[in-house]
């Protein structure tokens, strides 16, 4: 799946869609859902809500990205807050199956920086 670039407005829309989704699913007032809100601790979500979120955005953007790729991404970028989930969804939409290559490049760069500093 080719990469695409989301505009700031599209990223903002995804963030607001996630807030609305969580508000509906978890029965939490929209104004209580902030970027730093922890989905498990502050919003009383559960682990299934993460799958439901990904499924929702796969449908919305007609994504064919493999579940394995999303799983690997989440393992390397653990997400706990609404803001982190929003960034993850934007990354998935933008990079699709190339997500892992992006993460590996980031990891290699971090390791190179650490080696240079060490």
């Amino acid at each position, binding site marked *: 799946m080719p990469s695409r670039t989301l505009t700031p407005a599209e990223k903002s829309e995804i963030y607001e869609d996630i807030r609305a989704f969580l508000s509906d699913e978890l029965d939490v007032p929209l104004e209580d859902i902030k970027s730093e809100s922890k989905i498990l601790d502050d919003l009383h979500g559960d*682990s*299934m809500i993460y799958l439901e979120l990904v499924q929702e955005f796969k449908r919305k953007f007609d994504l064919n990205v493999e579940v394995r790729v999303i799983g690997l991404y989440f393992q390397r970028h653990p*997400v*706990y807050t609404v803001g982190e989930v929003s960034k993850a969804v934007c990354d998935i939409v933008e990079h699709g199956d190339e997500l892992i290559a992006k993460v590996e490049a980031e990891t290699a760069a971090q390791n190179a920086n650490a080696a240079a500093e060490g």
Partner: protein
Amino acid sequence: MDSADIKLISIPCNAPGVRVALLDTEPLARRELETLRARYLSDGEQVEWATLTHPARQIEWLAARVCLKQMLVRDGLLTDPRLCELRKDSRGRPWLASADGGRLSALDVSISHQGHWACACVAVGADARVGVDIETISPRLLNVAEMFVTERDWPPLTSGPEKGVTILWTLKEAASKAIGLGIGVDLSNVICRALGRDRHEVRVDAHRALLTGWHFPYDELIIAVTLMLHGPDARGVSSVQHTCL
């Protein structure tokens, strides 16, 4: 309120050294939360509890610890619930710490909650890693089943899809908890194979992990437990000395 007032439901798990208990939190919600906090939480846990803002989250957080500690007291593994605390590592895997902050390495623990139920599981043994998960049988999981059910899972989901999907979900979640994979792991890479009526082999190839799993229906719930024995001496858990605080 006395700790004897807390009624645990024992789940008959025949895994070696593993105990599982359920706690219905509906009565707890009506009790004095302050009393339970004072009786069951360590000083560090009291501080953590105060940071939780969602009332339902506060209750389930407390209930899971009450369930775990009451089970340890009941089974003679703990004398004072306030002398140990449940901590979590960077991936959210729980572990028990003693009052001096040291790790109680002979006890491996896992917790779960769903609706008004809290569940706790403990494995006695330095080489044991355990995971537990509970989930209500409902259509909710069917909407996301394609993200974790694969053709490699056995038996295939040909009948009773809601119950079958719930069994697979809880087994896979319990396995990810036992290994410590964290949230968002690719559960389609966790493969379940039934070995009997309620016993399963659970394989996570990416982590070269092979676990034994059990599932137990209770009320409208499925409870799944997975156990992995690892380390240089994985002969079992029965020879390990119990730690009692």
